[in-house]
């Protein structure tokens, strides 16, 4: 025979069993003396407990308690109303300050409002000041470096090599005999090498190259392995796409 647990018997005693389990237990109790004894013991213990607890009781001072409760509730309500009034005044002051450009306390009032608002309504999502994204600092323009040489003959060759793409190349004529080559590089400083009537420029990344050549004489350009004929006589001619072109200056390159 399976006996009822103490928890089930206690639940029966306290009227907590649903109808079907209660009916089943009552049928079991009719046949099981051990469970009836256990139930009687639980009932006796519960009665002894109830009697013992009654010894502790004393009457409640209901009227006095009611006066105290209502007075405290009125005080609490007054404090809440004062806080709300303070918040409203602060808000009004902040709104007024927001219309006065340059008012010294404007920032303080706005910050104080945010602190009070979040303290009174902690469940609100915190209001944060808009984040100002600083404008990116402009990158400093690279400073051109360069060389010049006086060609020995009538033709000059300039060889340009940049590893990240074709640089912008500006070719200009001037009345002097000197050939000048200046360049910039996006990574590091361009390297120059000269030879007889020859200038080589090597740069990392991309950059710009300024070439100034005499009116007289020829100029041949090599840019990243491609050869261009830039000048015959005193006219600049360039057979490729040009960003800008005048009779004395040509600008060409991958970017305008």
């Amino acid at each position, binding site marked *: 025979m399976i006996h009822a647990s*103490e928890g089930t018997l*206690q639940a029966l005693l*306290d009227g*907590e069993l649903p109808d079907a389990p209660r009916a089943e237990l009552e049928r079991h109790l009719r046949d099981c003396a051990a469970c009836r004894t256990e139930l009687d013991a639980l009932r006796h213990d519960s009665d002894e407990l109830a009697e*013992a607890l009654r010894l502790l009781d004393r009457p409640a*001072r209901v009227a006095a308690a009611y006066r105290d*409760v209502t007075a405290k509730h009125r005080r609490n309500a007054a404090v809440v109303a004062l806080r709300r009034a303070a918040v409203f005044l602060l808000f009004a002051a902040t709104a007024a300050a927001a219309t006065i450009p340059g008012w010294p306390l404007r920032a303080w009032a706005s910050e104080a409002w945010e602190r009070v608002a979040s303290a009174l309504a902690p469940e609100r999502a915190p209001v944060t000041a808009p984040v100002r994204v600083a404008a990116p600092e402009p990158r400093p323009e690279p400073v051109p470096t360069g060389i010049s040489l006086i060609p020995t003959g009538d033709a000059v060759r300039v060889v340009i090599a940049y590893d990240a793409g074709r640089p912008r190349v500006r070719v200009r004529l001037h009345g002097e005999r000197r050939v000048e080559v200046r360049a910039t590089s996006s990574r590091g400083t361009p390297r120059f090498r000269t030879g007889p009537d020859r200038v080589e420029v090597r740069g990392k990344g991309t950059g710009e190259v300024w070439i100034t050549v005499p009116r007289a004489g020829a100029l041949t350009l090599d840019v990243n392995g491609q050869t261009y004929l830039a000048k015959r006589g005193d006219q600049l001619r360039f057979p490729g796409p040009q960003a800008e072109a005048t009779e004395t200056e040509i600008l060409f390159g991958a970017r305008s």
Partner: protein
Amino acid sequence: MDALFQRLYPQLFRYLHRLTGSADAAEDIAQESFVRLLDRKLPEADARRWLFTVATNLVRDGARADKRRQRILTAIPPVQAAAPLPDEELERAERIRAVRAVLDTLPERDRTLLLMREEGFRYGEIAAAVGVAPGSVGTLLARAVRRFTVAYQRREEGDDPRE
């Protein structure tokens, strides 16, 4: 509110007085619980359960604070009665002291279970207030009642070594 207060305050005070052993603490906590109820404006059907749950939590929080204070306070010797009590009153006072002492030895959960059951709460309400599964309340109550009566009988018979 007046009718609700008249009906529930005596029950809450009785429960808290049995739970804490202090009439002053019972009054303070009962009043605080009612002030909070006024702020919430609950329907009357939910008010009783809500009040007892809040009050039980306040007792628990206060008991933790008391434990911290007792570590730093020195023991205060009991005040002797100015005049001897009649035998009948003396015996009643002894029994009250015994009930109080036995209740205080029970774990906090057992005390709350027993006293809420005495106030007529259903197992589901007791489970929610104490933080146990409703299906376990019967077993927990049966054991708590047995613990109380065994300890109480020992004190009555003078067998308790803590006497």
